[in-house]
């Protein structure tokens, strides 16, 4: 077995055990509520500004790109549909996730990693407390709650920004834009978007907690593990995102 394969199995096994431990702590109602709400604030409320900007830019870029590629034969209001679908199905969830990898995931890994190398995780164990329950579960649960809301927000801002951009760029009126957006709209699209949000909302804190707990080797180790965690999360997001169309869009 190659080293790469070994590493994949190692992480997969540890992630499985971690997930199991977290599910059990939820089932036993042992999640500390104060930490949970603190994480909602840190991950959700504090992320709103950057998610706002990202969502808006995603809408604007899609709108500009779409307007540029559309030639005379296609009715202009199609641009509305193009922007709405691209933002809701793809840009909203994925860009929000990538932003959260940097803003939330890296922070969690560095925070828990520092606790690991400064023996605070050992201290939890020595005091008969379970750091997975006290630190891990609230972060993952907060991710599950926060991510769909952030993605919904990014979607809304993205479509609105795209609509304004379409008017400024191609002179497409708001009504035509909305007409186009509605024409090809399925409520399924929203479900698809939120399913992505949920999957990413679990993956980011789960991986970052996992990486934080296995940090070793002082301050340098925290730096190294945080970088690794960001790579790990980004790749996971992109790979999961590529798996969605074959699984859900047929």
């Amino acid at each position, binding site marked *: 077995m190659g080293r790469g394969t070994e590493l994949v199995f190692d992480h997969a096994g540890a992630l499985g055990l971690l997930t199991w431990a977290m599910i059990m702590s939820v089932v036993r109602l042992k999640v500390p509520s104060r930490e949970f709400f603190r994480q909602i604030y840190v991950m959700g409320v504090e992320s709103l500004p950057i998610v706002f900007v990202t969502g808006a830019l995603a809408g604007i870029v899609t709108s500009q790109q779409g307007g540029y590629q559309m030639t005379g034969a296609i009715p202009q209001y199609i641009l509305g549909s193009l922007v709405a679908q691209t933002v809701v199905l793809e840009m909203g969830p994925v860009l929000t996730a990538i932003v959260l990898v940097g803003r939330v995931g890296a922070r969690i890994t560095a925070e828990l990693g*520092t*606790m690991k190398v*400064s*023996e*605070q995780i*050992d*201290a939890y*164990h*020595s*005091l*008969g*407390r379970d750091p997975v329950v006290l630190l891990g579960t609230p972060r993952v649960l907060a991710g599950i709650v926060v991510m769909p809301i952030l993605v919904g927000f990014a979607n809304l801002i993205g479509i609105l920004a795209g609509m304004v951009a379409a008017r400024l760029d191609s002179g497409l009126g708001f009504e035509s834009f909305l007409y186009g957006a509605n024409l090809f709209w399925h409520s399924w699209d929203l479900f698809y978007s939120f399913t992505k949000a949920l999957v990413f909302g679990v993956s980011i804190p789960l991986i970052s907690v996992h990486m934080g707990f296995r940090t070793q080797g002082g301050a340098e180790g925290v730096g190294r593990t945080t970088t690794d965690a960001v790579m790990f999360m980004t790749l996971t997001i992109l790979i999961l995102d590529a798996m969605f169309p074959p699984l859900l869009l047929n």
Partner: protein
Amino acid sequence: MIQYRQIHKSFDHPVLSGVDLRIDTGEMFALFGPSGTGKSVLLKTTIALITPDMGDVMIDGESVYFGDDGSLARARRKVGYVFQNAALFDSFNVFENVAMGIPEDVLKRMPRMELARRVWEAIELVNLDPIEVLEKIPSELSGGMRKRVGIARAIIGRPEILLWDEPTTGLDPINTAAVERLIVRLSDNLEVTSLVVTHDIEGGLLFCDRVAMLDQGRLRFCGTPDEFRRSGDPVVQAFQDRAAAERALDMAIEHD
């Protein structure tokens, strides 16, 4: 009673290679050894903060590693652990840190006043001023203060066994004496078993019932302080001479 049985542990190199040691109930036991010989690792294996590659630890006759589901939890409950670098929780203030030393189920049932009193008492025991420190977070404290808060957290739960990883390193002479008095007092009054890892050989020999020296992954010596002083083992002698020389140097620097 703590029994270490054939503890083996390697990281990228062997650290402990077969340590056997028994510390009786109510005993004060000092563990010496050069830096990096695995004293902290051995202490951590007591409650599975580090799992040995081989061997077992028995606490009051109950196996930590091969017992039933609850044996590790029971072991951790009996043991108070003073970490070498205090290991205080960054995001909690001193009050919350110390209160965490009380087992979760007891803490849940404890009235607020009782909790406040216990925390206050523990902080006074380590020679800190509760009014000054209770509300502070660890980063606002000096290293020596953090260390003493770590001790307060370890003793507040009234453990039967205390593991001290260099409790006096980094403390000034007054606080060193205070912590030493505390260790002795806890062991005298409460039948607490204490295992103290320390670089303070003089102090260890003075107040401990027995001492041991760890060297290159094995116990080089185990016996009474007197036997240690008179040991014919050249390694033990060299270690004592080096410690004495360092101490003299420290004193000289302090007097400068």
